[in-house]
């Protein structure tokens, strides 16, 4: 997602780099290139990883970038004029007083990225303030108590250590009296982080609104603008105290949906409205004008005096396995041999694994391998790859067989949330009965007690 220039010239062939060095030509220099029939002029750009190493890339005065193959037949001269790689001045923060005080934690992702207009590379903004350049109206409504760049990571690289770090910062900001927190995060794994934070910091005094962008901030159609403004408004004004994800509700730039941190999932690779509340009612909706409508009556209101309970213990020896036709049950033993202590299975339908295959294909059955795993004190939890709906241990014979073998059916918990919860539970206890009890009990909204008719699609 992000690129950095390994060296000034990027991916040029060594012959060309040597030529540049010999001629004293640097990236940004204005060059005149004379080919057989014509002349092209422009500033030298670095060659990108995907470009032809033998083509010299120029940015012409008309703005177009073009490439011309280097050969000894062409004449290259530099004029002396040069182009400095851009420096982005951070937006001046004209903070007003007497506005709700909120905190911003930046972790990276598309929303915190910006294009380098000269090279075309996408970089993480060095300062989160840079993202505000296109949203000056934000400062009419909130005052940022703190703006903390925690790290600059694409979300696929984020792991439990980063969750712990963010959770500690959330607790710290609340202890220092912030009235709400916004977290900018890459979208791919945002649902995992929102689940992790839901378990790691509880008893919140005010909302934590996570948000991101599906389009980059260099374009006029940057969706993160509305997302970020809405998240800031939720953090400042919404009357609940949970971890939530605030993202576009539809393809329109009007409303954002406020989804529960444990029941939210990225359901589309690229659309603005990729984030859906799964199998439950969203916390609420926020319009482009900032009107917040809460959609549930079971939300915990703001509790300014509440002290956050921080518990970031986490055991990463957990795994998530998807069942598919022909899925090999030996994978269980492979994981166990690697020291895995808990496995979430994304079963089919109500929570199946291949259990009773034909006589001559018994090696495809998961039943015996599951039994062996449980005998080795490994927790096996069952979720469904249907994504929507509840698992059930009794409806079919195969379900009952798995259940009797000791598989724990995890109700309607999302597979991803179940994985995160399992790591957190294992971090806190090694007692199998306690693990099972915690995994099947709703702690922070990850399991619904009744399946809501309105919670589908």
């Amino acid at each position, binding site marked *: 997602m992000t690129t950095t220039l390994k060296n000034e010239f990027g991916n040029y062939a060594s012959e060309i780099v040597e030529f540049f060095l010999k001629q004293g030509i640097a990236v940004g220099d204005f060059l005149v290139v004379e080919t057989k029939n014509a002349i092209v002029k422009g500033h030298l750009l670095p060659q990108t990883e995907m470009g032809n190493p033998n083509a010299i890339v120029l940015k012409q005065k008309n703005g177009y970038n073009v490439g011309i193959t280097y050969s000894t037949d062409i004449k290259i001269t530099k004029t002396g004029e040069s182009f400095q790689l851009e420096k982005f001045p951070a937006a001046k923060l004209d903070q007003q007083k007497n506005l709700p005080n909120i905190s911003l934690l930046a972790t990276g992702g598309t929303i915190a990225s910006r294009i380098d207009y000269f090279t075309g590379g996408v970089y993480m903004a060095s300062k989160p303030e840079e993202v505000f350049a296109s949203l000056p109206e934000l400062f009419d409504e909130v005052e940022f108590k703190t703006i903390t760049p925690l790290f600059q990571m694409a979300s696929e690289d984020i792991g439990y250590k980063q969750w712990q770090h963010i959770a500690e910062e959330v607790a710290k900001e609340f202890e220092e009296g912030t009235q709400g927190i916004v977290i900018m995060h890459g979208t791919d794994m945002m649902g995992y982080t929102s689940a992790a934070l839901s378990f790691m910091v509880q008893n919140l005094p005010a909302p934590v609104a996570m948000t991101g962008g599906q389009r980059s901030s260099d374009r006029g*159609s940057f969706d993160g603008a509305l997302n970020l403004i809405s998240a800031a408004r939720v953090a400042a004004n919404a009357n609940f105290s949970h971890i939530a994800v605030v993202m576009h509700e539809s393809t329109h730039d009007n409303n954002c949906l406020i989804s529960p941190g444990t029941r939210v999932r990225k359901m589309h690779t*690229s659309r603005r409205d990729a984030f859906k509340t799964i199998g439950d009612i969203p916390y609420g909706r926020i319009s482009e004008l900032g009107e917040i409508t809460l959609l549930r009556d079971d939300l915990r209101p703001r509790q300014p005096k509440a002290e956050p309970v921080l518990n970031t213990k986490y055991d990463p020896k957990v795994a998530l396995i998807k069942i598919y036709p022909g899925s090999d049950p030996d994978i269980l033993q492979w994981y166990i041999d690697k020291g895995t202590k808990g496995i979430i299975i994304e079963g089919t339908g109500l929570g199946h694994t291949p259990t009773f295959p034909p006589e001559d294909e018994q090696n495809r059955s998961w039943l015996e391998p599951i039994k062996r795993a449980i005998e080795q004190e490994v927790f096996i939890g069952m979720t469904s790859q249907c994504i929507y709906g509840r698992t059930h241990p009794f409806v079919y014979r195969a379900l009952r067989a798995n259940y009797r073998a000791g598989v724990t059916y995890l109700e309607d918990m999302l597979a991803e949330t179940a994985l995160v919860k399992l790591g957190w539970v294992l971090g806190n206890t090694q007692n199998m009965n306690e693990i099972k009890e915690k995994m099947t009990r709703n702690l922070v909204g990850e399991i619904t007690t009744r399946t809501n008719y309105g919670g589908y699609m």
Partner: protein
Amino acid sequence: MKFQTKAPETIDFENEGLMVGLEFHQQLYAPYNEQHSRPLEREHGSKLFCPCPAMIREDDHDFTVERELRAVSGETGEIDIAAHFEKTKKQKIFYQGNFDTTCLVELDEEPIFPINPTALFRAIAIARKLFNLEIFDEILVCRKTIIDGSNTSGFQRTAQIAYGGAESYILVNDKKIGIYQANIEEDSAKNVGKDEKGRYFRLDRLGIPLIEIATHPDMRTPQEVYDTALRIGTLLRTTGFVKRGLGTIRQDINVSVKRGTRIEIKGVQNLDILPTYVKNEAIRQLRMIEFLDILKERGLTKRSVNSIKPVDVTKIFANCKAKFIAKALKQKKKVIGARLPKLNGLLVYELQPNYRVGTELSEIAKVTSSAGGILHSDELPKFGITQEEKDEVSKTLNLKDNDGFMLVVGSEEVGYNSINNIRNTFKIWLDSEPIPYEVRSPRPDGTTGFLRPLPGQARMYPETDSPPIEISSDYLAQIDEIHFEMPEERLERYIKKLKLPEDIAKQLYNHPDNTLFEEIISNFKIKPTLVATTILQDIVDLRRKGMDVSKITDALLKTIFQLISEEKLTSASIVPILQSVCESNETMTPQQAVEKFSIKPIPKEEIESVVEEIISQNIQLVKEKRMGAMGLIMGRTMAKFGGKADGKVVSGIVRQKLSQY
């Protein structure tokens, strides 16, 4: 300083140093995948960055998407002035699309597909073979920031594919017109209107591949601009690689006169008015210089411009007789006014023929602030507004001797924005030496209206979703195998091989429907003259009769000529079918239209009985002349059937009957 209120009708172009360059945009016909494309993609071609059919739709849209665009910081970290200018319009944008011709790419909801390989190939072929341009070895797609709403992403994807050298030119009336650049780019979404909620665009045009050919400013007269555009259009059409019809060609014209500056006129579609725009823009530059000189002489300064401030004068119009004002006030709208220092009498100064300073201010208020237009002191009292009301406004706004005023009727926001934007315009005018750079839009009457300031340089950056495209020597060798028939070769073929009459051939070889003609004669066994006269004469005749010939689709013409080639229809049916289609309000498929409107053969028995009847009425003559009466009997019979009988059949019957005497 003495001045003429009316603008001159023309000027001495040579003396004033007119220089004009063209940027010729032509939609390409290019199915994304030539082997495996859906029928609509084969028929219309595809978009540049997705396989969606490049089909302009006349029917209703299936869905609307609501969006907002924001000004983003450019290369310098500052918001580009043209982009920021768009942002001050601050409005919702509504995109209308159809499920079968719009996908997530046009909706800015997914990354682009690799560039349409057919479109790229065809664009490069055109650039290299028609215009002798040099092709770049690596082509890089760029994003050009445009936030007027015409692109869902907030930018247009464009790539320069070729550059000009000493041998890159075309000949127009034996004069060399240099070509310096060719780009391939996406067409924009079509603006289809606005209301108080926002602006509306249709997505069918967004993403259609365009080739842009840019000329040097080598043209010196409006006629030369016309001839050059005609030549480029003809060259492009002979390739068969381009789309045809209204709206598939758009030209940007860069006009300057020696004392003026370079002004871009954007999006001219009608070739016939092209010279008028050039002429009027040249006049406008000279008139603008004079107008600003008068203002400066009258003592207009930046300080006095700063005093242009919106004032709510609604009260004065509480009992106004003008209907549009009464109606607006009923809707809780306001009348916002502003003093225009030193402008008394100058608001009717013509910048172009029939285009006054007041018109220009009105255009500025429209595009910058969505105002419906403005009223000004030089045109009042009028429209039902009385002298008393005018005097009252003058008093309220504290007008002095040489001052004028303007009024905006609309919401408070629209009124204030309009006046603030007009104040900014006057500042720009005073700052410009000699006149401001700007982009102007063509108006149907041949004048141009203000569109936006000319964008700065910081508007282009790389499209990261498209890898660099390497153009190999093998690829160019493939292109060199293509043979394009030059227009002159085509004319010769028409006369010598197709045996078209010379006058028809000369009209046809550079006619916009030339490719349709080629398609019909290559697909069906049919006399070329018949097709040519249908296109060049019959349809033109219908249009002259005031008929809506846009109802005559290519598909209808193809169907007619196919049926004629299969001898299922006679050529006598062509005009009746075309005429009936123009007159009909029904929507029909070509087959239905032919079925309904073609001439049905009249039964032989019916003709025989009519012939017998006419012979008996003229029995004396028939007996005298026998076969010599052929012409008369034949003529009367045909007249009886109103020309709808097949002449061959009738003459056979008449001959047979007469032979009996």
